[in-house]
């Protein structure tokens, strides 16, 4: 009998990617039976171990019919998880065919539908780390014919959107520092999960009491500051005083501050901090209350609807929200009227402005699919929903005027409309699109390098390592942006390019101009007494007017150079110019030594390096290739280097899975100064450990060619052993590893060293597909369902048809059914 799928069952089968079951769950009043085909499969593969004889794991599947309903459902839910994660039957036992597995899963899903017993499992499967459990081969097989969609959903705003929106909370545009310096007082209400990697998933985050608390605190801060000047007038007036009284009070305050400063001076104390505290206190009086608010607060206490609506609209706009709907306007004017009647115009307005900043609409972006139905249960996102979805896909801001206008005027209703707007945003260089680079951060995780602690002393005494690591991240960013700009063979390039940027902005013309200016400066000054232009020189001198003028004219960055600054540059340039090489472009804002020393992660001796003005350049032929040989990535994944790096490749590039660390594991790497790291890792090759570590270590071993700073090596420094003179004792490294899981026999097999590994990975179709799966997750905010198969296949096709254009793939994802259509899934 063919049955109609209930919504619950639909949700579950979507998630699990199981075939639609032909089984109907038993009616509540009917006795429970196991259908014959399922019973046969259980008999053949499960019951041997799970009957009264062995009852392995205390699980018996031979008595399902005798169990109470609750016990049975609980047991089935357990079986579902084991089967789904392929943890049962155990590896060494005969395995059911995929079809048989699907059959049992389909039956269980039907039994569990609507009982709530599978809720925990369903939620678990929605988390990013379970994304790879959706069968990779089936996703890309083309056999799945279902049309794609995302569930109708609310998506909690993310921390970046909040950070972007708050910049205008006090009325100033763009630059946070212009907003009376107070936006930093606002706390982040939207936490990001602790997870590294892509995890801004709609299903994962919700607002609770802590979110409300933070939002309310922020709202009070913003609203009270914004209304302050009007409030003062209101307050004085309501106490029978005038603005002049306030001015007099304020003058007294300022006088008291002045007195305090004088007292500090007299006592010989520094006035720096007290002065700053006063400035902070006084800054709040510089913020003008917008007229729309003043009209209400200082009016007759009976604001018109138009006045109230204007105030509400202004507040929505200022706080980076959607345009208020008529429903919003009605709701909030109603509330304001009531509040004003109770507590007067100031508190009435204040409460409404607060309410807007803690409302569900402020917290959640709505993607319910309020647009046209397509007849198969799916509806399109409504134009307004689409405008936000598109904008937040690429930027952290609400839609720009063009998008909003398109939504209003009926030009955001078709896939072509969506494509037009996506392409427009991508092609308009002036629109910041931080979300794209952020994808590569979250995918590769290289941006976390500064957060990995390294012993400063091992690196270079006198400054902190994380600042240098920040430079490595900038270098990787430059490379990623360069590859994206070329937009050809993007994934392969990211993994295997031999070209790198080091200490370079990526803008060859600008760097050339700076280097030329430095050379001219050196040539001009070298015969002069520049050593005396140092403020610390014993005999101080100043350059002549003419010298200064010349130096300042060389480069826009030099325009405020003084004698001391020229001295600094000359001191840095001299050793290089004397050797006839180009110095690493050094910006005075950073520590020079730190930068020179920092180059060691690239195996570069900064003091003797002829800086390539034109970049990218081939850094270390045959030793480094792509991001996985970049110091930033290597450092970010160096905590437990072998397993971290191996696990990353298994999960992110090979779409594979590694189980959670099991309960019995005490995974400490034994300390032994006589052994190399690889030798110390041998503890993981014990049989019980190896079951999981085999998925990580053989991949991680290939990275033995790098140390934890990202320095290439062919010997390991034995830092725990006594030094031989000024050198560490060394031991040869063993970078032999093993690649499997590419699905390509030509690529799988023994690998030696990082280059060998990344070159094979770069050729793998599966790796390309894994990239696309992760891009999908990032842009759809969820794990893929089996029904997203068409979206993924189309994205890969778009990529391949365009010679590996990331942009083409992205446009394909953002115009896919998965992006545009919604379906109510309960």
């Amino acid at each position, binding site marked *: 009998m063919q049955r109609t799928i209930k919504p619950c069952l639909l949700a579950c089968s979507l998630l699990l990617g199981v075939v639609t079951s032909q089984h109907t769950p038993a009616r509540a009043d009917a006795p429970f039976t196991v259908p014959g085909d399922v019973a046969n499969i259980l008999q053949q593969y499960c019951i041997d171990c799970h009957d009264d004889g062995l009852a392995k794991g205390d699980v018996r599947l031979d008595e399902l019919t005798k169990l109470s309903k609750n016990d049975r459902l609980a047991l089935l839910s357990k079986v579902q998880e084991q089967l789904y994660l392929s943890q049962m039957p155990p590896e060494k036992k005969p395995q059911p065919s995929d079809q048989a597995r699907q059959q049992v899963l389909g039956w269980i899903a039907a039994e569990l539908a609507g009982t709530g017993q599978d809720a925990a499992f369903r939620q678990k499967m929605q988390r990013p780390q379970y994304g790879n459990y959706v069968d990779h081969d089936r996703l890309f097989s083309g056999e799945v014919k279902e049309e794609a969609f995302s569930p109708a959903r609310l998506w909690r705003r993310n921390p970046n959107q909040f950070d972007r929106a708050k910049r205008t909370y006090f009325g100033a545009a763009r630059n946070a520092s212009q907003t009376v310096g107070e936006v930093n007082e606002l*706390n982040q209400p939207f936490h990001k999960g602790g997870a590294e990697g892509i*995890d801004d998933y709609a299903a994962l985050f919700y607002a609770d009491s*802590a979110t409300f608390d933070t939002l309310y605190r922020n709202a009070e801060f913003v609203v009270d500051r914004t209304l302050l000047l009007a409030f003062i007038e209101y307050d004085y007036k309501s106490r029978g005083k005038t603005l002049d009284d306030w001015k007099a009070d304020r003058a007294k305050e300022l006088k008291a501050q002045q007195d305090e400063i004088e007292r500090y001076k007299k006592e010989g104390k520094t006035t720096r901090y007290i002065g700053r505290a006063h400035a902070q206190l006084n800054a709040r009086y510089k913020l003008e209350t917008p007229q729309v608010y003043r009209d209400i607060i200082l009016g007759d206490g009976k604001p018109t609807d138009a006045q109230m609506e204007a105030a509400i609209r202004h507040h929505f706009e200022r706080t980076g929200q959607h345009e208020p709907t008529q429903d919003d306007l009605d*709701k909030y004017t109603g*509330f304001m009227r009531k509040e004003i009647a109770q*507590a007067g115009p100031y*508190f009435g307005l204040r409460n409404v402005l607060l309410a807007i900043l803690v409302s569900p609409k402020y917290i959640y972006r709505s993607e319910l699919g309020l647009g046209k139905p397509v007849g198969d249960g799916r509806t399109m996102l409504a134009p307004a929903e689409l405008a936000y979805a598109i904008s937040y896909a690429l930027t952290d801001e609400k839609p720009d005027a063009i998008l909003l206008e398109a939504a209003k005027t009926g030009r955001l209703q078709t896939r072509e409309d969506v494509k037009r707007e996506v392409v427009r945003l991508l092609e308009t260089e002036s629109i910041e699109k931080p979300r794209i680079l952020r994808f590569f951060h979250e995918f590769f995780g290289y941006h976390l390098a500064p957060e990995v*602690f390294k012993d400063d002393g091992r690196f270079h005494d006198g400054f902190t390592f994380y600042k240098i690591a920040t430079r490595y991240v900038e270098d990787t960013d430059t490379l990623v942006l360069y590859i994206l700009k070329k937009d050809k063979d993007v994934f392969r390039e990211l993994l295997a390019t031999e070209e790198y940027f080091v200490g370079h902005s990526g803008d060859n013309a600008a760097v050339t101009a700076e280097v030329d200016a430095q050379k001219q400066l050196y040539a001009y000054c070298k015969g002069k007494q520049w050593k005396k232009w140092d403020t610390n020189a014993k005999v101080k001198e100043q350059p002549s007017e003419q010298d200064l003028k010349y130096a300042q004219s060389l480069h826009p960055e030099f325009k405020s150079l003084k004698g001391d600054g020229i001295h600094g540059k000359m001191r840095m340039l001299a050793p290089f110019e004397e050797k006839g090489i180009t110095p690493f472009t050094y910006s005075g804002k950073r520590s020079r030594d730190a930068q020179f020393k920092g180059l060691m992660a690239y195996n570069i001796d900064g003091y003797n390096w002829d800086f390539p003005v034109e970049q990218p350049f081939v850094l270390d032929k045959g030793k480094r290739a792509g991001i996985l040989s970049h110091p930033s990535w290597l450092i970010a994944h160096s905590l437990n280097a072998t397993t971290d790096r191996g696990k990353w490749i298994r999960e992110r590039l090979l779409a594979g899975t590694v189980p959670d660390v099991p309960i019995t594991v005490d*995974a400490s790497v034994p300390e032994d100064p006589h052994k190399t790291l690889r030798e110390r890792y041998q503890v993981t090759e014990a049989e019980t450990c190896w079951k999981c570590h085999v998925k990580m270590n053989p991949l991680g071993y290939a990275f033995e060619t790098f140390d934890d700073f990202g320095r290439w090596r062919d010997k390991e420094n034995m830092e725990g052993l006594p030094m031989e003179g000024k050198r560490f004792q060394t031991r040869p490294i063993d970078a032999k590893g093993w690649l499997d899981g590419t699905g390509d026999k030509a690529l799988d097999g023994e690998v030696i060293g990082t280059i060998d590994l990344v070159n094979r990975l770069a050729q793998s179709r599966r790796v390309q597909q894994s990239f696309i799966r992760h891009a999908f997750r990032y842009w759809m905010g969820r794990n893929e369902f089996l029904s997203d198969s068409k979206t993924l296949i189309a994205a890969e096709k778009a990529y391949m048809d365009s010679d590996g254009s990331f942009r083409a793939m992205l446009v394909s994802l953002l115009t896919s059914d998965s992006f545009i259509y919604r379906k109510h899934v309960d």
Partner: protein
Amino acid sequence: MSYTRRKFVKCLSLGAGMPVLAPILGQLEREAYGATETGPKRFVFVAVSSGIMPEEVEPPSLKDESKDKYLNIPLDRLELEPAMKPLEPLKNYLSVVQGLSGKMCAGGHTGNYGALGVWRAPGEQAAPPPKRATVDSMLSRMYPAAIDHLTTGLTGGWGTRVTEGVVYPYISAAGPQKTIPFQASPNIVFEQLFGTVASKDRYSAQKLASKKNLLDFMAGDVKKTQQALPSQEKAKLDYYLDALEGLRDRDVKIAALRDSLEKHVPEFTDKYTATETELRQDAHFDLIAAALISGITNVVTMKIDNSATFYRGLGINEKSVHGIGHNESSDGKTGMECRAMVRRHHFEILAHLAKKLKAVPEGDGNMLDNTMIVYISPSGNRHHGTLESWPMVVLGGGGKKMKLAGRYLQFPGYGQANHKTIGNWWTSVLNAYGNPIKHYGDLDPGLMKGGFDQEGPIADLIA
């Protein structure tokens, strides 16, 4: 019969009478379980990452004792492990509990809710949704206050680097699917607890009244919004609705405690906005002490660190808690030596808190007499917990409900006769304080095989 605070709140529809009745409600809940004792009891759960190894809290003289047998020795006869020296003056209030297993929970870097909830909740980045209310949350409903359950912490889950604002350590749950958020910023905790009394605002009463209206308005708005949503999305707003209703109660109750809060508000100093681990811990514990003493809460759960925490103030610069947990050396010391330094530092903090409570008279004794401070790790017995034992350090008189103070307790090793689990342990705690639950937590399948009777409280522990 299960009377929850919420049910009472609903059926009595209290409004302004609420604060007076709050303690009575808890009493009613305890009476519903058949308990008769009155008077506040307080609980502080301090969750430490990276495990507490049995030998780290074992008196040196017992090193050679068999771990398979039962020990119950007065601590005053024993010399404490050197890292525990800060607790020496509090020996009468101290107990060390060893030998309880927890193999029904997830081991490894963290078992998340396992320590306080006794179920398997693996996951280093995030834990699966909670199965039931954890013990701390259950106790907070039995001993309600203006803030039933104060949850603060240095940081969130296992390896997160977030150290400000709201964090999610995945150790406490209010019920199935309901994880409890923690507040990591001491300045925000300060404001939540003492904001109303620290404020000199002439209009604070009006603002409070407005906030109540706002909460009512929002609750109505949320309910309306929910109607159009699919069920999973509805649930998201349910959390919000709960939050709004909870906060409405809380504000009223805090207002009623004004006198007490004014008396105990700590001085607001730089440490409330400091970034250094040790200063932040200090600030958090100052607030915890003030919160308990002022009566604003009776139950606190505190996440004292996580694997990404650095103890640079102790001179451990090179390695985080994770590094030293893996026994990597740092600053010329072995991982184990560093762990001992951290442990000692924690015990100094606990001793400081205990002394503050001890200084406040209550009934015939002092507040510490009626407080139970539990120091426990979600990772169990080591950095990668294996959970055949789950050491705990307990401090305080606990209202003389349990026979713990001043004792060193070692339960027979895993699988031995009379072996006990943390399920038995928490069952004992709940029973001792008035919830006669038959058994709290999941059972260990491994022990079930051996025909072990795992259920029920440990009779010897209950006074």
